[in-house]
């Protein structure tokens, strides 16, 4: 009887997580809310991040991204709601032992050398002795700071600080890595390095939660993205969907009658004719051949017909539009 109840509970929990076993979730939040005095920073964040995926967390300035991240890490206490990290309630010490975090502006004691900094962070994460001694040079090599290992942080550039910040987040090989604007202050070489590191972490089986404004980086590195506005998730999508999303079309046409524009609305929206250029957004990419067929069958001269992909940036701007940001 007990096992039946237990099985039923497991099924319920799985259903609640949208078909995903809660044990497979690296991050799970339910109606997470944070109010600072009279300002609502996060309205009600509900989000599931699967283990092993690279998850992008996108939104305009002031959307509540950093506050959400801080709540996940136990740095900020939620006003309402609940969240779990690697199956444990937020703030749990054991969960934190398996999490690596790079803050947006990484700062640490500038009188330390990078080797000493990694030693301190490694020790705080429970690493000791030979294992720690082995990992420090390896991490310095990973982030390209081996030649600067003995330098004090006060002599580091912004980009170098970001790299050593990334190294401290990874020194203990965490299962979940939370990166807040990791490419901030990095040159193209540094950005490439971060991309490679994220890829390697994913290959290792780690989950990466990426908060970034650089949408091109997100598009290249992430499996899924969440768009957040005013502290609420607006949409969660697979990044691959954007690769397949040829929903905008532009055609150079001749002899197109005005009344045809209305009929084209059967396959899409925002149908416009500017000079000889017809543009529209299709309800689905599969409607493109039907539009061409309609145009040809109705005697329209079609000189060009170009499907255009909706990029992550397009969608981001759509979501951001109407939000003045902060």
């Amino acid at each position: 009887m007990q096992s039946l109840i237990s099985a039923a509970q497991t099924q319920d929990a799985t259903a609640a997580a949208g078909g995903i076993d809660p044990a497979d979730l690296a991050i799970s939040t339910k109606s997470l809310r944070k109010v600072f005095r009279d300002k609502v920073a996060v309205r009600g964040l509900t989000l599931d991040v699967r283990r092993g995926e690279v998850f992008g967390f996108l939104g305009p300035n002031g959307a509540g991204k950093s506050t959400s991240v801080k709540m996940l890490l136990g740095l900020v206490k939620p006003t309402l709601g609940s969240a779990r990290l690697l199956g444990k309630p937020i703030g749990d010490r054991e969960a934190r032992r398996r999490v690596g975090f790079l803050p947006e502006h990484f700062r640490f004691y500038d009188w330390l050398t990078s080797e000493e900094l990694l030693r301190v962070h490694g020790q705080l994460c429970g690493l000791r002795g030979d294992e720690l001694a082995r990992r420090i040079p390896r991490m310095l090599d990973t982030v390209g700071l081996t030649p600067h290992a003995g330098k004090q942080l006060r002599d580091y550039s912004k980009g170098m600080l970001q790299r050593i910040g990334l190294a401290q987040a990874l020194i203990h090989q965490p299962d979940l890595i939370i990166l807040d604007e990791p490419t901030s202050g990095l040159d193209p070489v540094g950005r490439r390095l971060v991309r490679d590191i994220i890829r390697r972490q994913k290959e290792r089986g780690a989950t990466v939660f990426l908060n970034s404004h650089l949408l091109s980086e997100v598009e290249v590195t992430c499996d899924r993205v969440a768009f957040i506005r005013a502290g609420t998730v607006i949409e969660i999508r697979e990044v691959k969907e954007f690769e397949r999303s040829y929903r905008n079309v532009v055609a150079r046409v001749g002899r197109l009658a005005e009344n045809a524009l209305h009929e084209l609305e059967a396959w899409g929206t925002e149908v416009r004719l500017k000079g000889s250029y017809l543009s529209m957004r299709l309800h689905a990419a599969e409607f493109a051949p039907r539009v061409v067929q309609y145009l040809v069958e109705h005697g329209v001269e079609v000189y060009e017909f170009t499907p255009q992909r909706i990029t992550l940036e397009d969608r981001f701007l759509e979501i951001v539009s109407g939000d003045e940001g902060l």
Partner: protein
Amino acid sequence: MTGIWIIARITFQEAVRKKLLGMALAAGAAFLILFATAVHFQAAGFQERHVPLFLQRQIFSAMQMVGMYAINFLIVAMTVLTSVDTISGEIASGTVQAIAMKPIDRWQLMTGKWLGFCGMLTAYALVMIAGVNLVSAGMLGTSARHLPVAFALMWMESMLLLSTTLCLSVSFSTLTTGVLVLGLHGLAFLGGWIEQAGSLTDTPKAVLAGVAASLVMPSEALWRRAAFEMQSPLATAINVSPFSGASVPSSSMIVYAALYTCVALGLAVHRLNARDL
């Protein structure tokens, strides 16, 4: 527990690496040289003028008290100035985020900081107090009375100010914390003198006002008790000394100061636990 020692070690290391401790000790050495020079010339002057030995001893004892008073001031300044930025500064710069999200509880973070400063300040107080008394012992053949008790009381004063500073720095900016702690110590200092003056002039209400000030901040009371323990038997007998004498803080006040320290540290931990970082 390991987390506490990592934080304590790095806090102590910071004082050493930022040359705080080194510079403080260098300034302390300059003070000791000045003190030794003054004692040397005073002793030579007494010999020339054949001042009676009894009077010489009283004057040397008073000089020693002045020396200890200056050391006490340096310890107070060192305590407040070194610790005032540690929590508020790290919260403002975001440095604390990279530490607080690690598998370490916030009480461990606070306790580690406290222990690191405690180690540094204890070493400083030991060197300075030992320095003054070694100079006295070497040049005059005498040192302060009840030195271990006096050291313990001066150390307690430093720990009390340290705990108060850490407690306030969780909620206030560095500058505000500094102003508040020094303001409270100034209140205690003034209260101490009011208590002395009230006692000498037999004005109970003034004594009460002084005691009330010591209850708000008992730091100065600890110094006055330490001075009472160290002063010469004659000063104790005639009840006249610029540092204690007329009204001596009771043992209850010492216990109160110890409790004050514990409560301040407990509050510091509680506030750090409760606040967003």
